[in-house]
């Protein structure tokens, strides 16, 4: 297509830019892709290490998914329970992930989280306080002690605003509403290394080029490939896909977290997150018969640390030493599966969920003070007063444990100069993430990635740079949907993909359905090869979706491929045809790479922890 757009007069092909002015081009030491908690923390760290840094993010600054985190940041500050320390946090994290975690990441995370939280306070964060004036800590599923630093139920907003304001005060360059479509690497004798990245400005549709030796992926997750999700439009698996195409590997992709409590009604808000703090602060789950059914679903693995009577569970909120925690606060995978079973057994709520009840257990003033945004959310969007009646909730796709395979200490992938931090990185959470561990993950590994990326840039100075023909080819690929006539509508394909993933790669999986999903995804890929978008390049959501779709399809294929291979049930991966965990599978990761457009899978043995760390799991809980 060589024509000009009738409305703007813009030339619609990539040639226009290369001929006339060339692409907008920038040179940086470190380019961070993503402006959420991990991206901002990485950028701050790289800046502090002396690097020239750019943050490139799909939305306006401060709107990234971190803003939606509600409950808190897990860190063993020991303010509420002096008995708490990093070892207990490490143990909780590993057990929550059913021991499939990269132990070194879990160790670093538990050790460094307190420092990272205190640092936020140095930068202006205002956490809720204890009576002594220290940072207050709240209870959450899978955590032995009250451990989550929080601000009501809007902790993510506090965290992103603090990091955002810090980054702005340091003068870090931010490219808002820009999407990276390709990260380039070059193969040499001593391996593959990063040379730059290409993307486009949403506002104008114009391309931009970054020459850089270090790229930090901080792009978050994949939830938008599911129908019922707590995730926003941004969660299209961009970083996962960029990494694969640049030569990096993914691990643990079969593990997708379904948060037990998403809203179910009205349909408009189906999937919207209801924070775990509701249960942490005393809320309980009931079925249509009014029964606290979680007592029927306590797995052997957690029997010793879970209350088996309502009385004991209720006493635990006040006295954690002599009581065990209520089963509503089991790790998320356990609770989500239990809810799913109750609904399937016909004991669900009118709109296909179960009941979450805090109204009968805590007074209205307490609820409004501790959970202000939940109160607001239910009142405004569902006409439900959570201080007076139970809420209807059900599982919602929330988080992907899987991600880019990285070195635990430096966050570098198998590609030199390519780093990943936060949700897009894999390993830290094993097969299931504990609530509160993601905000701390962003801070701990965001900082580590930023520092490593800056150090690498120092060594690799001047080596990076993109070839103009590669950039031009990339731009032409991106513009193809404008040239295609009579192709598919990207919105339709996205909807169909969401249907496939929800139906066939959801909470409960079978080999047969997973095989079917792979066939369906392949068919969708074929259809997505011929997309047509209307309009022109300026702020065109249809075109943006057309460019995100290949990422969603590739990552969905990765999830289904790994899920089909793992013949056991563990954490966020439940196989109806292989119930229960299998010890042999418990020593293995599945590693995915891209081999000439097709997904390649390999088994890899998990790293083994030292004897000293092993002793932490021998102590009675």
């Amino acid at each position, binding site marked *: 297509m060589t024509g000009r757009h009738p409305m703007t007069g813009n030339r619609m092909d990539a040639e226009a830019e290369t001929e006339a002015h060339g692409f907008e081009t920038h040179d940086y030491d470190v380019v961070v892709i993503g402006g959420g908690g991990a991206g901002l923390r990485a950028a701050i760290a790289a800046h502090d290490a002396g690097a020239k840094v750019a943050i490139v993010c799909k939305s306006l600054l401060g709107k990234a998914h971190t*803003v939606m985190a509600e409950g808190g940041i897990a860190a063993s500050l020991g303010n509420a329970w002096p008995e708490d320390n990093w070892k207990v946090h490490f143990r909780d994290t590993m057990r929550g992930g059913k021991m499939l975690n990269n132990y070194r990441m879990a160790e670093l995370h538990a050790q460094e989280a307190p420092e990272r939280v205190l640092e936020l306070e140095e930068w202006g964060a205002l956490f809720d306080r204890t009576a002594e004036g220290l940072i207050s800590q709240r209870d959450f599923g899978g955590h032995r002690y009250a451990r989550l630093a929080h601000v009501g139920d809007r902790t993510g907003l506090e965290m992103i605003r603090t990091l955002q304001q810090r980054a702005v005060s340091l003068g870090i360059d931010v490219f808002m509403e820009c999407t990276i479509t390709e990260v380039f690497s070059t193969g040499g004798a001593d391996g593959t290394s990063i040379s730059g990245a290409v993307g486009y400005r949403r506002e104008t549709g114009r391309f931009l080029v970054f020459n850089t030796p270090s790229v930090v992926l901080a792009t978050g997750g994949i939830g938008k490939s599911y129908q019922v999700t707590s995730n926003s439009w941004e969660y299209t698996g961009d970083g996962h896909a960029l990494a694969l195409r640049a030569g990096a590997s993914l691990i643990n992709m079969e593990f997708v977290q379904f948060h037990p409590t998403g809203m179910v009604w009205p349909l408009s808000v189906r999937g919207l997150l209801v924070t775990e703090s509701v249960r942490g602060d005393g809320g309980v789950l009931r079925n249509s018969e009014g029964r606290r059914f979680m007592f029927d679903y306590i797995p052997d693995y957690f029997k010793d640390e879970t209350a088996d009577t309502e009385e004991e569970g209720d006493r635990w909120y006040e006295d954690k030493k002599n009581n065990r925690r209520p089963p509503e606060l089991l790790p998320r995978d356990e609770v989500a599966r239990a809810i799913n079973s109750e609904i399937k057994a016909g004991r669900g709520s009118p709109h296909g969920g179960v009941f979450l009840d805090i109204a009968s257990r805590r007074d209205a003033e307490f609820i409004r003070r501790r959970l202000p945004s939940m109160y607001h959310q239910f009142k405004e969007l569902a006409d439900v007063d959570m201080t007076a009646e139970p809420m209807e909730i059900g599982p919602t796709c929330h988080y992907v444990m899987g991600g880019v395979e990285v070195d635990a200490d430096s966050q570098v992938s198998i590609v030199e100069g390519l780093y990943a931090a936060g949700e897009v990185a894999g390993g830290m959470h094993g097969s299931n993430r504990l609530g509160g561990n993601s905000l701390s993950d962003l801070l701990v590994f965001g900082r580590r990635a930023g520092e490593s990326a800056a150090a690498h840039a120092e060594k690799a100075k001047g080596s990076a740079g993109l070839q103009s023909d590669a950039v031009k080819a990339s731009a032409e690929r991106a513009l193809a949907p404008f040239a295609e006539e009579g192709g598919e509508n990207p919105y339709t394909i996205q909807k169909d993909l969401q249907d496939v993933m929800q139906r066939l790669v959801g909470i409960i999986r079978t080999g047969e359905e997973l095989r079917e999903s792979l066939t369906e995804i392949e068919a969708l890929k074929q259809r997505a090869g011929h997309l047509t978008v209307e309009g022109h390049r300026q702020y065109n959501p249809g075109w943006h979706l057309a460019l995100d779709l290949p990422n969603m399809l590739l990552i969905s294929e990765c999830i289904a491929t790994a899920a089909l291979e793992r013949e056991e049930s563990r954490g966020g991966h439940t196989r109806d045809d292989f119930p229960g965990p299998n010890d042999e599978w418990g020593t293995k990761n599945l590693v995915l790479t891209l081999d000439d457009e097709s997904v390649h899978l390999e088994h890899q043995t998990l790293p083994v922890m030292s004897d000293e760390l092993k002793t932490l799991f021998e102590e009675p809980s």
Partner: protein
Amino acid sequence: MTELKMRVWRGDASGGELCDFTVEAEEGEVVLDAIHKLQATQAGDLAVRWNCKAGKCGSCSAEINGRPRLLCMTRLADFDPTETITVTPVRAFPVIRDLVTDVSFNYEKAKEVPAFAPGPPDADGKRRMMQADVERGQEFRKCIECFLCQDVCHVVRDHEENKPAFAGPRFFLRYAELDMHPLDTHDRRELAQEAAGLNMCNITKCCTDVCPEGIKITDNAIIPMKERVVDRKYDPLVWLGSKIPRRGGGPAREDV
């Protein structure tokens, strides 16, 4: 399911018009749902900003029947079923395309706010603040930066010429938050008055009215800040008189 009539402004910096649409509406839906249906079925390139669809990120600000609101928190049930719902971009900022405006004004103003500067920690290395003392700042930190307060503020809504000297309610919140932060060591009153243009606000409370977070911007942030400036200056009328020729841009950081 009902048929909903909508008028959505479409266009760009060079101009545009209200376009009529009819869309199927279901129980419990919000205006953003209707916009998404238009995108998926009738206008794939309809430009709109959104992220969380839960009133937490502040991306989907627009004007619905002339009133600044979040598209994701405005329920269709709030309108008469026969009513045509008109959606236009926020008026205080330049249009990029359709419902998307250029809000970079706010990001530029954010750069002018000097960073939080805490004093030394307690002897044991910890920092102590009482809940009652952090709650004042916490109210202001509920701000989701939807910029609806900026949009509705009559100092800038139809007065582009005031923008250089006026940061707007969102940033008065920020100055107040820092000023009331138990650990911050700067005195920000003069900066708020001179560089941010606090004096130009004549407390009509329009900002408070549209705040989706229910922050009492005028009563709890702006008026206390004005009072504190007065405390500092002793004689506000003389001081104001001497400052009438407005300054462009902010002073250097050391003036804080």
